[in-house]
């Protein structure tokens, strides 16, 4: 049984390189449920903490596909079935004329899916997060320090050994993060 009331353990690092190295080691040690915090994006981190690739691109693809089909369907239904009207001597189903609207509704479907899907997948807006309980984190996470948190959800998580593991990574400090 995991200790209750503990979100995880947090370690502080001075440089992005140390954070990435620590994340690599934690991953090699078998930890999977962890997260890293940095004042700026560090590309190598995604891979280091082993977060799975996001499915957002596929959602956006299908959102765009849906938007496009809906737009084209609307045009086809209004122009050909519901209210057939000859414009400029063209056939009723004048697909070149349909393309601008089809394009716009594709973009609309894709971009709405991107925004809503992004919020849905990353859980924002998030008014409370356990890491805010650590004062060092509040003061430095957006400025000059780099943090790694191993969460208690991780099957390998054991309060003492995990704390010890992070201390051994030359962390500047290690804290228990209460829930």
């Amino acid at each position: 049984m995991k200790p209750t009331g503990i979100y995880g353990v947090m370690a502080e690092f001075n440089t992005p390189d140390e954070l990435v190295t620590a994340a690599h080691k934690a991953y090699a040690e078998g930890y999977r449920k962890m997260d890293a915090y940095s004042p700026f994006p560090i590309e190598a981190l995604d891979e280091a903490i082993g977060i799975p690739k996001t499915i957002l691109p596929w959602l956006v693809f299908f959102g765009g596909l849906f938007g496009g089909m809906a737009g084209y369907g609307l045009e086809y239904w209004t122009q050909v079935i519901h209210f057939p009207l000859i414009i400029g001597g063209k056939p009723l189903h004048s697909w070149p004329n349909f393309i601008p609207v089809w394009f716009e509704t594709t973009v609309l479907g894709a971009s709405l899916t991107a925004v809503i899907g992004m919020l849905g997948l990353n859980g924002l807006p998030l008014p409370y997060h356990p890491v805010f309980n650590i004062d060092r984190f509040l003061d430095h996470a957006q400025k000059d320090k780099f943090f790694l948190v191993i969460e208690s959800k991780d099957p390998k998580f054991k309060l003492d050994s995990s704390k010890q593991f992070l201390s051994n990574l030359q962390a500047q400090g290690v804290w228990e993060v209460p829930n």
Partner: protein
Amino acid sequence: MAVHETHAAPRTVTPEQLTPPWVVDHLRKRWMGIAGLATILSFALYLYYSGTFEGRQQFFRAYLVGYIFCFGLMLGSTALLMLQHVTGGKWGLVLRRQLEAGTRTLPIVVLLFIPIIFGMQYLYPWAGSMPLDIHGQHALNVRADYLNAKWFVGRAAIYFVIWGIFIYLLNKWSLKQDVLPESPEAYNDLRLRFMRLGGGGLVVYAVTVSLAAIDWVMTLDPVWYSTIWGMLYMAGQALSTMAFMLVVLTLLAKYEPMKSLLRKTELHDNGKLLLAFVMLYAYLSFSQFIIIWSGNLPEEITWYLARTQHGWKPVMLLLVVIHFVIPFLLLLNRDLKKNPTRLRNVAILILFARVGEIFWQVNPNFKETSGITGHFNPNIMDMVLPIALAAIWITAFFYQLKKRPLLPAYHHLVPEILEPSHGAH
């Protein structure tokens, strides 16, 4: 672990470490061989076909297709080079010396223009003795002050001089970034000068490339005109150039020094730009089509009729697929844009599609003697001449690429390029 120290110390590199690899010279020699063979074959074909007016016309049609492609690579390099001076960014820095090598092929592009002067009468209705209908004759009478042989050559000379001035300055100033700047102020001054030259140059480019594209391709049809034509050429040249430069960049990345300099980030960025140009070209091309198609006016729509009938429809559909659909769908994929080999394959496909697109723009203009629009009947020259011209251009490109270090060593963004991904050890 020495991570700490190396992260703090600024990383530098000397021009000597940036010498182009042996493969550049190897490729120059190989392309020179192709150019030699294809040129000899072109001469032989000219001799074989030059007996008739149609034969000579066929030769110059094929020549023009190859020429417009090479010219696009040269001028597209100039435009992208100026663009990266205006916007800055590491994507442009890794391409910088390649683009400069592309611009320095201007003398070859000027030389290759000379046959067009001699072949003018076979290509352009305003210069030749092609049979014209009453509308064509009327249009050419009205435009005779602008569209005549002397002024056509004069305008070409003016374009080449204007481009030459920009190309000369861009290349001359660039050498100053191969030596340690005297002071930060002097460096910033140079950067600003580059930015102003690029900004002004892009405006001049937009005007001159539009006029040149109208002169050299649009006036193949005596009546037809399109106001988006210049923009189509800008987008097309940017697309050809980006595709070509990515092919070369991914080849160079197999060898030092580019092997350790080219990071996934910059490759990815340039792949994104390639996708953007694919979309831009398709967008402009479709804009032209839908306006003309909707208007359905006799003096405009004939251009598309000639290009969708008499066997040209499959060509057009094939172009839609290889110029837009396939590159677009493939380049959407993020992993593909970070994979040098796969990105190169897409870029090569785009280069073939570009030649095909120019072929499709140029050739249906030529009427058969009976007066109907040109049928799709490709000739062996339609393949040999573009290969010959492209090979000559590529030879000149590699010759120029070898002359300078692959990066301006003292550019302010070089330390960032040298910084490996964090924790990559």
